[in-house]
């Protein structure tokens, strides 16, 4: 007797409650359910996937460990090839730095001998005070602010106000316990500066949102992004405080300050102690 191969011929035994048929049916149904759930991205599916991956993570880490070790070994070996070249460059750098240290030591020694010859006793002419910016309800411009240091703290007109980024401004008016500071952006602010790369001295003047270069003809000889520091021109300013960097466009050259008084509520003030200078 011949049987025609059909869905129910061998895999299934006929009957509605065939366990194999029911199991296959449930499997297909479950697969279709997950198919629809993953397409709809239902909360159930997302949570289920999250739990499956969380549950399987230790196993994945365990299996990945040999891959990780192999990868690290390969990276180590590839770096190992470069060690010789790296060593050569480091030795050259080391030798160069040793020469610089020797040169520096020599200059320090020479400086000491010169001081002795000239009989100079070094004194610190300035001190650094920490002040706080006060809220001024009567303020009518954006280029000045008030700090809680004044005459009683030893402040004088033109003392430099700065923060960790660089110079913010200078003291304009003095009270006993507070002072008005004019920021670099103010049109009345003119600061003597020195360009670090091109070694040029000139002045920068505030102009609302940038600083303009004054008393310097060849503006385009300055380098883009070179740093400007204060100089002690006219004896007012302490030298070496960063002011800003040079910005060059096609038709203008200006300076962008590093520091703003909105950076922090605390500022430093550099106070000159002229008494020491006079005593010297």
């Amino acid at each position, binding site marked *: 007797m011949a049987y025609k191969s059909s869905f129910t011929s061998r895999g299934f035994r006929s009957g509605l409650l065939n366990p194999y048929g029911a199991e296959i049916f449930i499997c297909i149904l479950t*697969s279709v359910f997950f198919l629809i759930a993953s397409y709809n991205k239902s909360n159930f599916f997302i949570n289920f996937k999250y739990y499956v991956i969380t549950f399987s993570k230790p196993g994945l880490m365990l*299996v990945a460990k040999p891959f990780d070790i192999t990868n690290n070994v390969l990276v180590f070996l590839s770096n190992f090839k470069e060690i010789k070249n790296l060593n050569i460059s480091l030795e050259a750098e080391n030798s160069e730095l040793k020469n610089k240290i020797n040169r520096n030591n020599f200059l320090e020694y020479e400086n000491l001998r010169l001081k002795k010859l000239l009989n100079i006793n070094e004194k610190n002419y300035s001190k650094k005070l920490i002040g706080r910016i006060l809220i001024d309800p009567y303020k009518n411009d954006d280029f000045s602010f008030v700090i809680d240091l004044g005459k009683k703290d030893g402040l004088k007109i033109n003392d430099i106000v700065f923060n960790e980024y660089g110079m913010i401004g200078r003291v304009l008016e003095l009270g006993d316990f507070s002072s008005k500071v004019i920021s670099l952006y103010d049109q009345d602010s003119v600061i003597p500066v020195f360009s670090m790369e091109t070694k040029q001295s000139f002045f920068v003047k505030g102009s609302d949102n940038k600083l303009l270069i004054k008393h310097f003809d060849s503006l385009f000889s300055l380098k883009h992004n070179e740093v400007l520091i204060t100089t002690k021109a006219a004896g007012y300013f302490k030298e070496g405080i960063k002011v800003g960097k040079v910005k060059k466009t096609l038709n203008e050259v200006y300076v962008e300050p590093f520091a703003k008084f909105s950076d922090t509520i605390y500022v430093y003030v550099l106070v000159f102690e002229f008494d020491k200078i006079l005593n010297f």
Partner: protein
Amino acid sequence: MYLVIANFFVKIFPYIFIFSFIYLEFSPVYFYENELIKPFLSFLVIYSWLCHDVTRFRPIWILIFGLFYDFLKDGIVGITPLYFTILYHLQRKKSDSLTSFDFKETWIKFIIYFILYFVIIYMCNYFFENASYNFNKNIFSFLLTIFLFPVFFSFIEKLTSRFGKYDN
């Protein structure tokens, strides 16, 4: 006692074997950012096992393997268990659905079923998930899987014959 442990080990080994291959396939993907060229190891192992010893697993286990595989693989979940359930039923219904006496014919059948699976996965992820496929990577993985089939097929053939002896 020894026999009980050995029997238990024989019983659970195929499940551990398949789960470890699923882990092996996906663990590098979870820990390396670069797209890896990897063969479809789990597909190879499950398919080969269905070819040699379809009665070893119940359909519910095929569902679990497929779902676990799909959950670890990013994209639409449910295609792999559905596909393997159908293959399982085909093989159980007619033992020469996946295999044949001539190995070349078995290999060709594998290639056809694998292309079908590959295309279904690709189409589903393309239309439902808007996933971007790295064509070169997938072609390499595809070819690598086809070339590795004889190795896994013969390896699992040996395993199933060994387990068949233990069962007897």
